[in-house]
């Protein structure tokens, strides 16, 4: 879900996704490379992402991913679910 969210703002390469998640989560969440790329490829296989090769900021060839329509739908569904889940946990934890 986090990966999908990272790509909501536009296409990025894998390293960029990891960096964005790391920075945006206040350095709390660090995505292991061993989990990142399998996840990216799995999402691509399933049709949530589409990929193309392009030039990165420092003129290196990199594989860029972006959300597809499927991916966008999946992202909104996942985030709604997450909101419900975290709200429910909050209720439980705040109960006296």
């Amino acid at each position: 879900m986090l990966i999908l969210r990272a790509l909501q703002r536009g296409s990025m390469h894998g390293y960029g996704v990891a960096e964005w998640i790391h920075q945006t989560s206040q350095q709390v969440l660090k995505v292991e490379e061993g989990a990142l790329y399998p996840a990216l490829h799995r999402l691509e296989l399933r049709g949530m992402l589409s990929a193309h090769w392009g030039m990165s900021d420092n003129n290196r060839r990199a594989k860029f991913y972006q959300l597809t329509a499927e991916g966008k739908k999946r992202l909104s569904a996942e985030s709604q679910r997450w909101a419900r889940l975290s709200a429910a946990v909050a209720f439980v934890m705040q109960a006296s």
Partner: protein
Amino acid sequence: MGSSLHAFLLRIKMLFRKRRMDREMAEELEFHQAMLREKLEGQGISKSELNQATRQTFGDAGRWHERLRELWQFRGLENLLRDISFSARMLKKSPGFTTVALLTLAIGVGANTAIFSLINGLLLRPLPVPHADQLVVLSIHEGGPTPNYSFPAPFFRALEHQPAIFSDVFAYNNNGRPLQVQARSGSEDVPGMEVSGQFFQALQTPPLLGRYLTAADDNTGGNPAGLAVVISENFWGRWFHRDPSVVGRKLVIANVPFTVVGVMPKRFIGADLMQRPDIFVPLSAEPIVDAPRHNIDEGLNAWWLTVIARLQPGVTLQQANAALRTVSGPILHAADDPNYIAQEDKAHFRFQAEPGSGGYAMARFFFRNPLLALLAMCAGILLLACLNLASLLIARGAMRERELATRLAMGATRWRLIQQLFIESLLLAVLGTIAGIAVSPLVGSSLAAFLTSSTGDPTVVLDTSLDLRVLVFAAVIAIVSAVLIGLMPALQATAGNLNDHIKDGQHARQLHEQRWILPRILMALEVALALVLVVGAGLLATSLVRLYRSGVGFDPKGLANISFNMDKQQLEGDALMRVYQEIGQGLSHQPGVKSVSFQFITPLSHRGWNGNYSAPGGNTHVIWLNSVGPNYFETMRIPMYMGREFRWNDTNASGLKIILNQSAASLLFPDHNALGRQIVDPSEKTSYQVVAIVADAKYSGMMDSAPPAGYVPIQQDEQKKPSLNAVVRVDGPMTPLAATARSLAARLAPTIPPPILTTMNEVVNNSVSAQRMMAILSLFFAGCALLITAIGLYGTLAYATARRTSEIGIRMALGAKRGQVIAMVFRQNAWVAIAGCISGMIAAVLASRAMASLLFETSPHDPWVLLASIAVLLMIASCASLLPALQAARIDPILAIRCE
């Protein structure tokens, strides 16, 4: 489900772009690594620690690459491909084993498919006409053991219209002589068929051009427009060069013009699967094309038609037979021979119909049982090959225990290992069966050529081409053998406790003994099967030897048979006899010729002529006849007990004479006083004087004993223009005789076709061709079986001994002598061989009973054959087992223990 479909499609796309995908993945990971490096550099980490850091966070690039790649592949397919290449490498590493395995499988599968294609062509294939299952073959039951499939014309015509039972009834001649067609220069013999009016209508195949023959053509003189013929597409191409205006052209057959009214397509072959006639003439035109014979006129004396009918839709076979039974009586009683009617009434004369989707072929009767027996033997060989391979693979698998155990420990599932071992055996099985199937058409067509040449008729065809049935059969065989071979070793190898596998190596013997039980049982089964095959071959070979030794009654060595066809020349009666006499003299003047005579029927050619005769005041008996020339018995070397040979002056004027063989003489004159007496033919009211008694000789076939027979002089033959065979006793080469006969014929009877020379040895061999084929092939299979079993016994024992090297080394170090070691190893197989022989003997005794009908003067339980087979098998088993035993005794104890 959309996402998984998407994944599937993408994976398929990746299947074709493997290399590019690999490159891209590597590049992607490299990019990430480079970016990481830059960031760390920016953070101030030194160069040396850089590599360590990246490696720490990133890990081994190869492994990520592997994981990503796996994501994109079809796991099953990749595993399969990997297993196949692994198995191929393993097989290449032991070329001896692989070659032997492939060879034995190829033989087994190839032989089975070849024999089955023969059986398919001869017995199973239906006629290529619509609704062939509605066709039935008619026969005449006269109370004998087998029905008669040849009809005389009057009976056929009486059955031709039975609309209640049959929608169509047709007949064709089964005495296939070629038609003499006038060509641009001279005449040519063309294979043809005389067919009745409903022939084409019943076979429901539309013509390519023009029309086919109908009932209107089947009249004397043809239809009002003249005599019509229909030709085959092949003939149209060959003779008329596919001229589109062929309809209406004339063909001159036997000097009479016929009009071509139609051309039949290539797929139409008539009603006899083994013939390919080029010209179809109406049945009523038989006296024209078959001159000087006139089978139609001969009425009940000529049995020359095969009759086939098409059942009315909705009529069952039982209903048809019941209806036939009711019409049999009236048809019989309409015949014009009261004696015959009375005789047949007593024998419960009736017509019968049987399923005939494949038409009728006489060759089937000779070859059906031999072919089925051969198929059983082939199945046995295939089973043997499969058992052999399975046990060898199991034995070999036991050698790889360590490897398999290690892989199990490293995380492979048992199922995965079984899959891989199965693929290994499957690869062997598939390659072997493909090799066998590739070879089988060649084997099948050479066997078919052997069978058809032995019938003596050059126009006979046996179609063994691959069709759906043969392919399905081959596929089934392939699958069954693949599973048999593949499954057992795979299951066996991965059974058992993991620890035991790794721990023991070559030490823990007890647990291993158990694992050798299955291969031993398989080997014992193999020995039993091999014994059954050897016994079968022994019985057939003994039967064949006895068949040859039983003699034919005459001496076929150095005897030539020259057949003359006198149909197309004008002389007959006494004038023709003078021609024969001159031919005889001309032949006798050749160097090496001892004596010359003539015969009407060549012995052992399955032709026959019989009549009823009785001694005055005695019972009527069936006597088989032949008409022969002077000096016949001297030429044939048939012993003459008393009396004299025929002479050239024994013409009709000097009184009818006959020579009887021993059986006929004792039958007609039980008081043994036949010489000089008279016998009568009750129907013709003619009387013959017996001038000699000769020894019995075989008549139409080798397997039947000599029947009571009588010989009449050729000068007194009822036929005006008989076509006789000259028999020549020659000391030396026989081929010059052919040229002599040709020049004599050219001089004395220029219009006849050239005479044909065959040796009596050939005739004798042809008459037992089925038995010869069986004996030769069964010996070949028995040899293969022995070889395969020997290899199996050697192989399994060698593997087993190799595993026990250290144990043997210890024993020898502790003082065991060489002889004891040899005996210890040898004993292992001894039990297998003995158990196999005992069970094999029981199976052979039971199975050989089914062969009794194929054997001549040989009991299926012939003790000599059984004993000899056991001896051969035990000897082979001993030799095969001795080799590994000797190798074991040569083990150096110190090396053996050290290796461990």
